[in-house]
């Protein structure tokens, strides 16, 4: 009897810890091992760390399974296209069973426009909330190293990632 109780409590405790740990995973689904995807993933994690979220950005190549049940959120990293949605990512989204916790971040290629936009669910975003920006990367800039402002491109990346963090915080 005592052994049974101990085992049950142990299992419950394990499940509680496991679910807490798992729910800090933010799965970032991407298509292709590209510099943009690699840098974006790293940037997302660094922004999570700066904001003390405790979240872990887990990169998932499209086609690999995503643990929706244990995900804090799922980010579809739409890169390598000047507009629209990457075909393979579109297939993933259309099969996505957990749209409520999925957001699309589009980093348009070949685009120097540093405007960040938050987009409501629509056909263009395949029914997901979206955040759009450009993929151009110029680093913080020399001035920022000496206390000056960061480059407008870097500020753009800071802004879209800020909006992403805000969205994840609100996601259920």
């Amino acid at each position, binding site marked *: 009897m005592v052994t049974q109780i101990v085992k049950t409590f142990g299992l419950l405790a394990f499940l509680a810890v496991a679910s807490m740990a798992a729910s800090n995973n933010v799965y970032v689904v991407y298509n292709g091992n590209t510099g943009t995807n690699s840098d974006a993933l790293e940037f997302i994690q660094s922004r999570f760390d700066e904001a003390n979220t405790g979240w872990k950005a887990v990169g998932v190549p499209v086609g690999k399974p995503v643990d929706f049940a244990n995900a804090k959120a799922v980010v579809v990293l739409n890169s390598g296209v000047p507009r629209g949605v990457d075909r393979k990512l579109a297939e993933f989204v259309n099969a996505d069973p957990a749209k409520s916790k999925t957001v699309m971040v589009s980093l348009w290629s070949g685009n120097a426009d540093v405007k960040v936009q938050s987009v409501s669910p629509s056909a263009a975003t395949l029914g997901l909330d979206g955040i759009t920006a450009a993929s151009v990367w110029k680093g*913080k800039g*020399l001035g920022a190293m000496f206390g000056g402002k960061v480059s407008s491109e870097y500020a753009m990346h800071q802004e879209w990632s800020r909006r992403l963090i805000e969205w994840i915080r609100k996601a259920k």
Partner: protein
Amino acid sequence: MLALLLLYIVVPLVQVALLVQGRSALSPLLVVNYAASVLALHWILANIFVTAKIPWFQKALPYDRRVRFHAMASMGVLLALVFHAGFKILAGKHIDAISWILLAAILLLFAGAMLWRKKTGKGYDRSKQLHKALLLLVVLLVFLHVAQAEYLEKIPASSLLIFLAYYLVALFAYVATLFGAFRKSAEVVSIQVRQDILEVELRLKRPLRCQAGQFVYLRAPGVRGREEHPFSILSVLGDSTLRLAIRMLGDFTRSLAKLPIGAQVSVHGGYGAFNPGSENALCFVASGIGMVPVLGVLQDLAKKADQRQMFLFLAIKDESEVPASVDLAALQRALPGLNVVLLRKADGLRFSAKLFAEKMGEVAKFRYYLCSSPGVRKQVLHALHSLHVPKQAIFYEEFSLH
């Protein structure tokens, strides 16, 4: 060798691993690009440290090997940088101004070094100064470039410490040698000129760790500005007196002959590993001014009353080429096992397998120490190889990259 392996291979590869660990979406080309950039970065810094004239490391890393290694490692840097820059440019990445300036500075550094090899005299010295100045610019730009690329923010703390260690050690080596941290002051005690050989005796204000067979860098204020040149040590008397023998070939060396007694100069060293160990039998082969380290070593062995069988093959114009303070006959008396074979120009004798075999008999039992021009060395090596003398039995220091 272990030190070079660590500095150039093991630690930089660990740095690459620390940079890419935990990263997703990495293609093989991306990984190679990261590796190229990290390797180039660490090799540039290691190169500065390895080629700095720091006498402390002479035993672990003999200077001549360091210089030649530096040339090879620099080619590695160039290849890595060409890949890294090419990858970024072809991928359409934005290249900021600092990166362009750094690339230009490094290419200038290489171009200068390639031209430097062919120069002599004043052109050689100016090229050397330009190389040092460009190097300082490169070191500063490298730091700005990696900071801008947020490399320092992307790597774990351990990796950051390693990078900073490389950077600070390179900077220390550069600054220390620039400001003469290892130079020792000395006073000219005597000057002797015979034919075109100048013998200078220096009294050091503080002891210099060196021995005959090695060389030191000498700078004389008032003689061609801040230039310094390497000269072989003929003898070391106690802790504080050094005798150099110099062939007067150019402005610098001819100006040295005009130094007054009591003139203040500075030296640093000793560099070089031209010194026999406990081999059973020794054979010294020298020509021209290359005889200086050889005669220095023999004088040292004479002081220790060495009894081993030795040969000295000396190619000279005539006996007047031998430094005035060296008495070959006295050397032979002090070293009973020493046989001296003079190859005077007038005799028409040349280094050959026949000469060595005739004079020495059992050539295989000797350890050979060569000090000569590259051309003569080539002749001697050819002769020894044809007598099946193994490469490990032949020692020489090679400073030329030709």
